[in-house]
């Protein structure tokens, strides 16, 4: 069987991992294939070949450029090894526009997709998160485990496992920051009081090769040693093992089926020519918005709003009573350290999650200008030594989501112009729920020794969470813009959507692992069906 995978992000990696287990499947992966700039990559490689003490300051300066502020968003856009390549327009953002401050850097053209720059938080969805899905979590368990066995993974057995099981063999996390340790200790001492007020605290679960971590402090700007997982690592391995054929430099324009198989018309970015590539099966994994543009324009779904479900992000700075002893990211690991889980029901469907991040240099850059003056140096240090930044998420059913509208392209060789706007379906729940979250965190503050800075708590703009999907949701009996449990819309039998575009809902749990597991499930089921 000839299979074509479009994309090289986490969904594509999940599907490729499942398919590559069958020697009778010929797997070809096409992708925009954007890469880190040569100078930055050279610096990264030099650093990867040496111990942190031997790194040149110029290389460190190149790769550790902090995040950049973007208009209307409280959270700056991350940089990876000093580059914006995960967000850069390699052609895939052609015709993308947004209104009202929405994020428009929503499709990655990078090899590895947004996992080049993600937070690496890796957590299984709660069982109740699947209440609105056409299959239970148990149907995904084997796929979750299969994916976890193929990626680096670190975590600990703690209270979070009451909702999010720690499946697979997780390595222990590296030692946590002073603030994180204090918060977790306080939670252990006052667990009953904290939980009575509706908050559960546990340690991070990360796609991180923790046992090798040298705690160089550069996690948030890119691990020079590649210990933080990126989907590109999966593809590098599959290419090296000759299990797939990978071709970068293709921008998919249109999908279709003919002669019992499927085809994609793709622009060769080097030549500009549009080529038709055929396969028995096509797995579409361009990221939820990239896939939606490709599928909807192929099916003439123009000028009609397509609703996206988003697990909206909120930024929640916390201030601790006690300060950390030093203000530096050196000799530490700076990924997410601990999680706060706020259940709003018994079964664990209505969960809100907050990921706690320790000090990193980006926080220094983000503080108000007035605190950066020499006269305010001591106050600045006093503040930063007490700050922990929380990135929180509400589930999609409490979030506004956003609408995407496509217009017919000028010619068949163009991508359909795409505009992203605020959703007409916004129920306005997010502000109310965020107030409830604030209330709980204020009530547990005396016990945890850390309080939210309420005036600075803010919801991020639509699209900024990167946790969105649901444009072609799985359904048992699909109709209209729904897909079956194999990710197929009604018009097609050999084209499978495998990214978050098929998620019926988006839980507040970080969702990349679930994307990979679901893509793995679809590919596994396709193979099983083929073998009868």
């Amino acid at each position, binding site marked *: 069987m000839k299979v074509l995978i479009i994309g090289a992000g986490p969904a594509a990696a999940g599907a490729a991992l499942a398919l590559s287990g069958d020697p009778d499947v010929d797997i070809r992966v096409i992708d925009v294939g954007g890469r880190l700039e040569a100078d930055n990559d050279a610096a990264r490689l030099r650093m990867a070949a040496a111990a942190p003490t031997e790194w040149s300051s110029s290389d460190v300066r190149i790769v550790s450029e902090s995040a950049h502020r973007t208009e209307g968003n409280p959270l700056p856009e991350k940089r990876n090894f000093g580059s914006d390549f995960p967000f850069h327009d390699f052609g895939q953002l052609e015709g993308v526009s947004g209104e009202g401050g929405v994020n428009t850097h929503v499709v990655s053209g990078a090899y590895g997709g947004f996992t080049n720059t993600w937070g690496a938080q890796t957590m299984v969805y709660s069982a109740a998160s699947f209440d609105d899905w056409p299959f239970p979590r148990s149907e995904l368990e084997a796929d979750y485990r299969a994916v976890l066995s193929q990626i680096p993974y670190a975590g600990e057995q703690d209270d979070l496992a009451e*909702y999010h099981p720690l499946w697979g063999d997780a390595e222990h996390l590296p030692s946590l920051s002073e603030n994180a340790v204090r918060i977790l200790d306080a939670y252990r001492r006052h667990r009953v009081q904290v939980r009575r007020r509706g908050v559960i605290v546990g340690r991070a679960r990360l796609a991180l090769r923790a046992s090798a971590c040298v705690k160089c402090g550069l996690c948030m700007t890119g691990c020079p040693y590649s210990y933080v997982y990126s989907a590109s690592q999966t593809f590098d391995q599959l290419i090296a093992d000759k299990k797939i054929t990978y071709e970068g430099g293709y921008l998919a324009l249109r999908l279709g089926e003919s002669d019992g198989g499927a085809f994609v018309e793709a622009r060769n970015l080097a030549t500009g020519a549009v080529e038709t590539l055929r396969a028995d099966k096509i797995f579409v994994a361009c990221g939820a918005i990239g896939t939606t543009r490709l599928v909807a324009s192929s099916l003439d779904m123009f000028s009609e709003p397509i609703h996206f479900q988003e697990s909206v992000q909120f930024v929640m700075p916390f201030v601790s009573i006690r300060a950390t002893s030093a203000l530096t990211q050196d000799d530490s690991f700076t990924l997410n350290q601990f999680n706060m889980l706020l259940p709003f029901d018994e079964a664990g469907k209505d969960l809100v999650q907050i990921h706690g991040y320790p000090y990193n240099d980006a926080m220094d850059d983000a503080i108000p200008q007035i605190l950066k003056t020499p006269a305010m140096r001591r106050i600045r240090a006093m503040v930063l030594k007490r700050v922990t930044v929380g990135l929180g998420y509400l589930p999609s059913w409490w979030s506004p989501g956003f609408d995407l509208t496509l217009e017919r392209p000028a010619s068949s060789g163009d991508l359909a112009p795409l505009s992203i706007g605020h959703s007409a379906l916004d129920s306005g729940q997010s502000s109310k729920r965020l107030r409830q979250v604030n209330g709980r965190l204020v009530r547990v503050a005396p016990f945890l020794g850390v309080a939210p800075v309420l005036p600075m708590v803010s919801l991020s703009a639509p699209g900024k969470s990167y946790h969105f999907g649901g444009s072609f949701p799985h359904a048992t009996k699909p109709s209209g813009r729904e897909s079956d449990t194999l990710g197929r819309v009604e018009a097609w039998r050999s084209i499978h959507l495998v990214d978050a575009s098929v998620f019926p809902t988006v839980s507040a749990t970080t969702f990349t692992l679930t994307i990979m597991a679901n893509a793995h499930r679809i590919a596994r089921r396709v193979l099983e069906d083929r073998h009868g």
Partner: protein
Amino acid sequence: MGVTGAGGYLGGAVASLLREKGHDVVEYRRNASEDDNGSPVRGLQLDAPIGPDVFEGLHSLVLAAWDLSETNGAKSWERNVEGSKRIVSAARAAGVSRIVFVSSMSAYYGTHQNYGLMKLAVERAVLEIGGVVVRPGLVYGGTPGGMTLTLSRLARLPVIPVFRGANLFTAHVDDVVGAVATLAADREVASAVVGLANPVPVPFKEIMRAIGDAVGSSAKTIDIPWRPLLLLLQTLEKVGVPLPVRSDSLLGLVRPASDVPGLDVAASLGLAFRPFPDGLDESFEVS
């Protein structure tokens, strides 16, 4: 089949009934010994390491062990919740396919009671591995134990304190034990939370009057405002005064669950719970 907490009120009764029904039962108590019939009892403590072969050969395990002696919240959590989670994990690793956890109607989303919160946390761990959670209501009948024993002591006071607005779900011990045994033996039942109680809540005043009648008390009931009493109990506990009733128990009485979960599951298995006070008198006649 295994039963932890077999030295306790419910655990012992469940073990006996399972044995009566012809099952090969392994009892787990604090210390290894022999039971009344001379059968070996395996030692299992909530806060001690679990040996590798402790659950060998079991296909079902009823978790009824709980230690109420620890009054410090953090220590009680460590012993009961973390200990129970370790048992669940070890049983699962040993291939035990059916786990039935004896929780409480005090365990419900939004409970403020320590005991309910702790039971709820263990419930989550059991449900995550596909086990069954049972929540008995206020258990009466048989040899009075647990809360019924406490209430029977209150009923013997010169005036019987009651709390307005407190309504509790009740269950006769025989019905509860029968239901737990059924769920332990039936491996087809899907993972669920099943309330083991009559679905009609009974006003606390009515419960106390019935218990008063059963113990031969003619004392009058008196409505007590529970908030000041709760505050008083909490204050006395903080200064270390030993009390016959804990503030946490009072909280369980005055802020009970609003409904009985899993009624459909119970009905599908033919589990029925007699209305209160059916069967109450016999228990006090015996005692």
